[in-house]
């Protein structure tokens, strides 16, 4: 009698595809989080301290992106970039979409954290003669960063989760690799659960790391 190969057997033979998918997922998440945080910090600073005309384009960016589903964002980047004459591959388009998404969230987080600081902090900085940028660098941002850490960690896990959307535009990240294996093995439940488990591990690790850092930098 023919015995179908066990799941563990299939898992073992698919290990390389899964590993490379896992790495791709991590890679595009990290890229999007780093670039998005960079954009978000700049946008958040301008939104908090900029004049009206400096704020306007950033406000438009943040509101536009936050009103758009990240899936639509990824699809739009993927389809629109070539139509606009910008030759980027699916991976780049996907990272672009995730970055824009991350940036808009970080912008609001940064703005919220800075605006929540007591006015007296800026005044005391000025009173000892610090310039605006010194006050920002030595006094305001160090405090704002502590405050935004939990939300930022949360955003990072959102990006990791959203990175699965890249499977739809053909980036062989963890979910698409999983789907390809399922198409071959028909072990739908097992492999989806396994993929879900791996994503859970990544996010849970980020969460634990975040909590650890939070404790390390907490003020008495």
């Amino acid at each position: 009698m023919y015995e179908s190969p066990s799941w563990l057997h299939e898992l073992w033979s698919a290990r390389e595809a899964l590993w490379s998918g896992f790495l791709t997922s991590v890679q595009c998440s990290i890229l999007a989080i780093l670039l998005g945080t960079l954009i978000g910090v700049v946008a958040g600073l301008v939104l908090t301290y900029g004049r009206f005309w400096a704020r306007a384009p950033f406000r438009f960016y943040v509101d536009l992106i936050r009103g758009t589903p990240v899936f639509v964002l990824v699809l739009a980047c993927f389809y629109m970039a070539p139509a606009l004459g910008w030759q980027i591959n699916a991976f780049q388009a996907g990272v672009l979409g995730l970055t824009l998404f991350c940036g808009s969230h970080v912008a609001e987080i940064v703005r919220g954290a800075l605006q929540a600081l007591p006015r007296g902090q800026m005044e005391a900085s000025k009173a000892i003669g610090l310039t605006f940028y010194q006050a920002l660098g030595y006094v305001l941002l160090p405090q704002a960063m502590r405050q935004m850490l939990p939300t930022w960690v949360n955003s990072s896990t959102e990006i990791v989760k959203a990175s699965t959307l890249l499977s739809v535009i053909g980036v062989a990240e963890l979910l698409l690799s999983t789907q390809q294996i399922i198409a071959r093995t028909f072990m739908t439940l097992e492999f989806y659960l396994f993929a879900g488990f791996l994503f859970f591990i990544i996010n849970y690790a980020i969460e634990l790391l975040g909590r650890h850092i939070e404790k390390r930098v907490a003020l008495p």
Partner: protein
Amino acid sequence: MNYQLNFAAVWRDFDTLLAGLGLGLELALVSIAIGCVIGLLMAFALLSKHRALRVSASVYVTVIRNTPILVLILLIYFALPGLGIRLDKIPSFIITLSLYAGAYLTEVFRGGLLSIPKGLREAGLAIGLGEWQIKAYITVPVMLRNVLPALSNNFISLFKDTSLAAAIAVPELTYYARKINVESYRVIETWLVTTALYVAACYLIALLLRYLEQRLAIRR
């Protein structure tokens, strides 16, 4: 760039897009309603005296929150039939989105319940109400009003997440957008209009919900 904008193809299918948007709203509404019930039960479980209840609720919240929703959608739609549970696309998606919403709302409700002053419960006891009566007539109504802003934000998130139903061919806005995109090749127009529809819908929902929040808020 020699791309000529031509919205004719998109306008021709504009009512289809609107119908897709409508379906998305319905999916979000049904899901948040079910999600509220799940969230409320789980929040009480999290705060329960029984360890088993606390642990299972906490596992549910942690697992769902750290798993990409796309994986959940595919898992429930494609893998459950293997276990003999056969669901249509739409019910399957609603179940997923409700479970997803439930995990986030559990956190919201838990926070809301914790922030209710102890005195309220004691005042309830003092006039002779039982524990469940206190929950039904005092704790939950007060808590629900306090968490309205968080509920609104969750609803808008859920509405944006309905775009993912396109991944299992539920005919909502993103599904039609991809269809028009492929059929007409009017790439830029399709995604501009789709994004605009989402942004406008989110904006209007937000306005409506702010208005409702003000109407329902407890006057102080």
